[in-house]
């Protein structure tokens, strides 16, 4: 059986690697359409990560909201703004070497902090798979105020987006 476990863990690490590669591709690809597709790949990968963390409701929500709706929005925007013709415009500005250095430094000290701090581990939570039932109770119970606030916030964003993008006659 432990062979199966090993395979599982190896699978998770490869998934993480794939996501990182897709993220790098997304940032460096020349055509915006290709980088949007790379983002879609990253999002689906992250949904996979949620599955390995036993958060399957969240994984489905991620695919439905991000890959279903947000990606469509992004691709619509890309189609509307990108001319069919020229692809030759340089996508990255000149600060990239400086940026790489700064970010690597930031990353280095961040991982240092992560490794050193003793995280308080609660073993019994490890295996609890959270079903939609408990999430529903949490939303309606403890976080009901935040839930209502988010719905107001979403409606405001919706109307705002329409007003800005509308071709006012």
């Amino acid at each position, binding site marked *: *059986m432990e*062979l*199966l476990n090993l395979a599982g863990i190896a699978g998770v690490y490869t998934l993480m690697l794939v996501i990182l590669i897709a993220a790098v591709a997304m940032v460096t690809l020349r*055509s915006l*359409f*290709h980088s949007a*597709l790379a983002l*879609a790949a990253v999002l*689906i990968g992250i949904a996979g990560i949620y599955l390995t963390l036993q958060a*399957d*409701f969240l994984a*489905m*929500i991620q*695919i*439905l909201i991000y*890959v*279903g*709706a947000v*990606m*469509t929005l992004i*691709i*619509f925007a890309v*189609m509307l703004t990108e001319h*069919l013709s020229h692809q030759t415009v340089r996508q990255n500005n000149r600060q990239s070497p400086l940026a790489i250095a700064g970010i690597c430094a930031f990353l280095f000290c961040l991982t240092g902090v992560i490794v050193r701090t003793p995280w308080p581990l609660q073993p019994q939570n490890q295996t609890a798979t959270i*079903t*939609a039932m408990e999430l529903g109770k949490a939303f309606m119970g403890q976080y009901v105020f935040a839930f209502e606030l988010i719905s107001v916030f979403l409606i405001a964003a919706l109307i705002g987006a329409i007003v800005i993008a509308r071709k006012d006659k």
Partner: protein
Amino acid sequence: MEILDSIFLNTKKIFLDLLGCWLPDWMILLVNIGIIIGVIAVLGPVIMMYLTLLERKIIGRMQNRIGPNRVGIFGILQPIADGIKMFTKEDIIPQNADKIVHFLAPVLMVIPALLAFAVLPFGRGMIPVNLNVGLLFFIAVSSTSTICVFMASWASRNKFSILGGMRSAAQMISYEIPMVLSVVPVILSAESLSTYAIVEAQARWSGLHWFVFTPWGLLAFIIFFLCGVAECNRSPFDLPEAESEIVAGFHTEYSGMKFALFYMAEYMNTFTVSALAATLFLGGWEGPVLPSWLWFFIKTHALIFVMFWFRGTLPRFRVDQLMGLAWKLFLPLTLINIFVAGGYHLISDRNFRVAGASAVLLVSFLLFTVFLNRKYMPEKRRYDLVD
């Protein structure tokens, strides 16, 4: 009847026990998963091939003609002939097309169509993967096909396909929302997202126990089915590949095997959507006498017949009417439906006074929305016959 009912389960168990004697037990687990994947990978394309034949036969009979009967006895081998034709046809890639995305689009179109099979309860105990968020998985997977439509239309770089791509994406999004909302009452009364639990919930109630016999269930079923038809770009809503207007929509530039993949994705979507509609509203594999998996296939094929029936009869909607229907008619109906279903579930389970009240409420709201949209309703016409 029990033996016939779980005939497939027993054969699998026997096969696994047979393998068990010289394979380690964790290998058996893998083989079990392998069998399920193999069944779906075979079932999908075979269903797709024989749906094409079924469609041409049914529509043929509706038009008083026979439909394909040259290849094989009743045209049985016709799908294989189509398959070979699709394989051998030359695969043309437009000159300034975006090679990778052009190739990737059909492949990515088929993957969600195949994934959706994983959640359908084919029979008692015969559900490939019993996710407890099965229904949400189905909706999430079917919503990813929008991106593939975009990729196909953007990559072929021609006016017609971009026009078609934009139209079909807009249609898919505006029909996804009523589809998701029309499923909420079912989740509400089955108290679970897993398709297996939903079918069992429909079996638990006494008397006529399918959701479709409750007032809100009927309305939700009609809306879900129509949105499903729109989701796979079929008949009254098949605007993207409207031959008479913009040639063939987003798959204008595809030929040969790639076109076959688009074709396969469409027919697999047809099967999965009608299978899910049968599961949610018509009681999945619930049925008095026949084995459970046979009931499932009868109900699914009844709904598929209705989809082909639409294709054989109804003309096509125009773009703005299509969108108007989704946003102005289906959306308000589904919202009200959720409230009525909530009240229905809360007050009592099965007595008829509540059912009557909710039915009256729903019908009155339906007439109200039809009244609101009367500007788009067809007007009566009078003609005078003059000497």
